[in-house]
């Protein structure tokens, strides 16, 4: 063996080599990253992207647009496309972008591939995304669709049960849980949902019973009230005035029920433990077009007592400072005959109400109050027929 011959230094080859090397040392290669914004450029390369851009602009990101078109190529089979959409949806779901996830799953379902499992999964996943967006009804529809494709798909049943719970369909929730527990008797979520739904259902039943009892009680009270009013022979008038005497009680019941709506003061006659009534009463002051409302005027109390209390301090609208309790006169109006009747202040409400010409409108007796012998009263009453 001969020793290796050392290469003779070849000046031409050397020169060529040096020239080649210089090309690299001097300039930059094209397409390299720029020093200042190399991170941004980094992000644009699909392989290094941390986050996909929400819209893929083919101009800005040609590579990405290219990849997209490969994935979502219509030439691939529906199953593969649906699977792609499913995976895309799952990715969005993981990022909690539920709206996009729903869109992806919808696209996947649109492919109408023949695989029932895949469709069931798409429906179930879409149901989950809808659930987290708060669209419980849509989520339920998806869960039901999933079950139709695959009746024993446990995740669909779990999701459906959760939806029913949110929608307050407690009986359905329990049924779905029982169905699911037949597949996996120890499924924790189903056990929890079932217990919750059962408890809420029982609470709901209790609330219904409570409301019913309350309604019954109110009805009984109204009945008793009616009886008491009838017993006192108080004449009632309602609108429309065409109510017959016979149907008076029915009308009264309706009136009592609707009174809270009609009567702006929201008051109605009440009965105390001894069976004595108290009426809501309106005092009208025609001189100044003012009124006072007494919520509960006990039928055995006298007008004068109320007046003394009310006019202890003169009301602000009493410009002439003359509305003292002693000076006041009380009248009630008989609308039918257009007559006024004077009420002796020392009489009780009950006595007045039993006057044959006293009609109570809307269960609120109203009385006109004026100052005795005042200019106004003379003018006002001069024109009217006073009894």
């Amino acid at each position: 063996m001969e020793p290796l011959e050392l290469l003779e230094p070849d000046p031409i080859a050397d020169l060529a080599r040096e020239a080649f090397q210089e090309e690299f040392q001097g300039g930059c290669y094209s397409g390299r990253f720029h020093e200042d914004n190399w991170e941004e450029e980094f992000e644009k390369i699909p392989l290094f992207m941390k986050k996909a851009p929400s819209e893929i602009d083919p101009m800005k990101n040609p590579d990405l647009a290219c990849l997209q078109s490969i994935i979502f190529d219509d030439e691939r089979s529906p199953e593969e496309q649906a699977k792609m959409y499913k995976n895309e949806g799952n990715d969005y779901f993981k990022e909690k972008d539920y709206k996009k996830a729903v869109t992806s799953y919808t696209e996947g379902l649109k492919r109408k591939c023949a695989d029932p499992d895949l469709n069931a999964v798409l429906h179930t996943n879409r149901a989950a995304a809808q659930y987290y967006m708060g669209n419980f009804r849509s989520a339920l529809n998806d869960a039901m669709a999933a079950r139709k494709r695959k009746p024993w798909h446990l995740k669909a049943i779990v999701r459906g049960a959760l939806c029913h719970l949110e929608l307050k369909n407690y009986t359905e929730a329990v049924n779905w849980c029982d169905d699911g527990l037949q597949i996996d008797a120890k499924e924790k979520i189903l056990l929890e949902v079932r217990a919750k739904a059962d408890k809420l259902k029982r609470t709901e039943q209790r609330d219904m019973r409570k409301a019913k009892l309350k309604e019954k009680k109110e009805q009984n009270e109204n009945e008793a009230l009616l009886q008491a009013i009838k017993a006192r022979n108080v004449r009632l008038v309602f609108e429309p005035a065409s109510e017959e005497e016979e149907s008076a009680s029915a009308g009264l019941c309706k009136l009592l029920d609707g009174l809270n709506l009609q009567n702006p003061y929201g008051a109605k006659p009440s009965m105390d433990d001894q069976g004595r009534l108290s009426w809501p009463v309106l005092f009208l002051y025609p001189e100044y077009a003012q009124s006072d409302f007494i919520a509960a005027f006990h039928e055995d109390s006298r007008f004068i007592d109320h007046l003394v209390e009310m006019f202890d301090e003169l009301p602000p609208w009493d410009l002439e400072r003359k509305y003292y309790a002693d000076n006041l006169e009380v009248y009630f109006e008989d609308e039918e005959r257009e007559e006024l009747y004077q009420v002796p202040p020392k009489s009780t409400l009950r006595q007045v109400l039993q006057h044959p010409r006293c009609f109570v409108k809307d269960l609120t007796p109203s009385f006109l109050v004026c100052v005795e012998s005042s200019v106004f009263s003379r003018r006002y009453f001069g024109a009217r027929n006073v009894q």
Partner: protein
Amino acid sequence: MPRASVWPRLRMLVPPPAPSPQTRIGLCGFRLFGGRGRRPPVATARSGGTLAELPGVCEVRAGMEKAAADTGSSTGGGGPAGLQTLEVEVAKLLPFLAPGARADLQEEAARHVLALTGSGPGRTLLASQEALLRALVDLAAAPAPAPARDAARALVNLAADPCLHEPLLVAEPGLPARLLGRALDPQWPWAEEAAAVLANLSREPAPCASLMEALTAAEPGESGLERLVRALCTPGYNARAPLHYLGPVLSNLSQRPAARAFLLDPDRCVIQRLLPLTQYPDSTVRRGGVVGTLRNCCFEHRHHEWLLGPKVDILPFLLLPLAGPEEFSEEEMERLPVDLQYLPPDKQREPDADIRKMLIEAIMLLTATAQGRQQVRDQGAYLILRELHSWEPESDVRVTCEKLIQVLIGDEPEHGMENLLEVQVPEDVECQLQRLDRQEQEQCQREQQEWELAPEPQAEGDAPT
């Protein structure tokens, strides 16, 4: 100890024979069917002719009548010779019960057997006939048009007698498994009868163990007990049979610790599904079975906290049948569990006294531990029991109620005795307690008798108007 179902042994009423001059009460207590009216001739390959004229059945009947007449004296109880002849005669029914026999003959034979099972000596007679029993079991499981129903009812009567369990199981060791299969089959029309046989059988420990084995050996993947519970809890599981008797079956099974362990499994949802059945309106049998099951489960004091807690919430379901339409004040109402609040004025209490007693006993068991007592008190049980006590007409239920109220309002027991189920009772105290119990029972009985014998108060004569 957990008890078997308190239900009286089931006896299928023997269908009454049509009035017929040939009916004779045999001296051994047999009721023999005379000709029950001619049946229309069945077209068969053999010569036609009405049933009563066909040689086989007629002979058997005649033979039995003769044997009955031979057994002699009016003091009843045939001599051994007479009995043997009867056995021979009964054995002659065997070919008619066999699977290949003519359907109408099968039916007639089955009805005979059913009639025999209606009486004690009849059952004893059948007990010795191993082959007959086996044929009967086969018939009970046979599809239509075989008289499976009558055969099943005959089995019900046979199983009602504990002495017959052994011969039955000897004749057909797979009996519990076969009956179970039939009872849990959603399509089988006589599932209720199958369940009734199981209910009777499972009262005794040996058949109960055999049934338990059959349940655990059932198809893998779904426990047999789970299927049983599902059949009981799903309305309309079997469109043709109501399956009420699965209640007592479960109740008897719950005597066994393995069954209780399944029912009380905290990782599953089993006992929770049984709770609403305490209010089942259409069947006392089902309600009773479920309440019995719950009561037996309450013996497991290690599970009391879970039972009384929110995941199961057993107490309101036990109290609801005991609650009536009473009105409580707002304050009292708020203390009650949700299910007991604002009950409507037409609320009825549990009508069966035995079930009421079992419910109170179940609650009593739950008060065994100190914590259990506290939870029962906190959930307002006292209010319900107070009202129950003033309403309760049966004296023994009232006494049980009193005892429970005493536990609830009494002082806590001394240190070391907090768990009443684990306390060791010294012998002399035990004797004393038993004596007191006996006295109490006698007292109850005496009160009951007095009440029954009390003369009717004279009705006031109508005042002349």
